[in-house]
């Protein structure tokens, strides 16, 4: 019987032991992990993970229900078409920082999308203080166009007072 892939999304108040409990339950039900992203966002622990197994979607939910309820978390399950060993290498990295205000992410990503930049990974955070919040964002992605074209696409943001750095990513292989 062939394995199905699911994307599991789990969210709940952060506390020690979440990953241990969830991964133990998955292991005990014969499920395997693929690529995952797990991090704390605003006091919540968030998990997105590729999981494979022979189970159907309803069966998977039933099996995970006890551990999810015990942890007080929310679970979302999506059947997905997925493959491992298909990583794309980023060739451009963009870092953005500036006084926090509405629309920074929308403006930056709209400019990138228009320039043909495909985002592989985006992390953003609000740093600074309550009184002076600072928005910091790092984006890694792939673009066919040269770094200079991305620079030009983001130039209006600079004029708007946002600090934008664009760097070619030259991955060292050795």
């Amino acid at each position, binding site marked *: 019987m062939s394995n199905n892939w699911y994307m599991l999304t789990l969210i709940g108040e952060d506390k020690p032991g979440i990953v241990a409990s969830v991964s133990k339950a998955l292991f005990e039900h014969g499920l395997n992990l693929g690529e995952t992203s797990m*991090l704390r966002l605003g006091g919540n622990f968030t998990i997105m993970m590729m999981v494979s197994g022979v189970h159907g979607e309803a069966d998977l939910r039933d099996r995970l229900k006890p551990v999810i309820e015990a942890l007080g978390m929310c679970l979302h399950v999506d059947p997905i078409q997925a493959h491992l*060993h298909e*990583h794309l*290498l*980023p060739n451009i990295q963009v*870092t953005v920082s500036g006084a926090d205000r509405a629309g920074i992410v929308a403006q930056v990503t709209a400019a990138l999308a228009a320039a043909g930049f495909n985002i592989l*990974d985006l*992390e953003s*955070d609000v*740093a600074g203080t309550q009184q002076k919040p600072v928005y*910091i964002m*790092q984006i*890694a992605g792939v673009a066919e166009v040269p*770094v200079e074209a991305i*620079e030009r696409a983001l130039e209006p943001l*600079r004029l708007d007072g946002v*600090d*934008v*750095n*664009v*760097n*070619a*990513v*030259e*991955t*060292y*292989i*050795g």
Partner: protein
Amino acid sequence: MAILDILTLPDQALKQESAPVTEFDDELRAFIGDLEETRRNGPAAVGIAAPQVGYFRRVVIVDCSTTRKPVPNHGRLVLVNPEITHWEGYEMGREGCLSVPDYTGNVIRATHIHLLAQDPYGHDLEFDMEGYEARAVQHEIDHLDGMLFVDRVVSRRTDLFQRKVYQKGGKG
């Protein structure tokens, strides 16, 4: 000349420390020829270290002259018994490895190094290196010490708060 088999994770031999080269003979130079052919055969390999092909001697090859955008470099270098005598600065950069297929990660390396080494005939070499080439040599010397870049990978999130802006508002 021959293309040698590359050891890949989780082969424990990659964790082994390599011994200094003491005999600068034809056998060593023949091995270096094979190592270079293996590097050229590797997908997009910029550097290679002898222990990656199961030869546990302190020999590495790097060639940073073929990057998409030119970087400061000393061309193709065969470095025997390389030793870094001075480190300065640090920056994050993306690395991958012939011994760890289909995985890349961010690693912090010194931006400037002073390097002593020998050539395949035992003659002394000395270099000041920076940036990408300094990174290459640090990555390869790690192999000689039984260390893989996966032992050094850091989260980009770590960098968010430590990032040093070298050129404000311009090309970094």
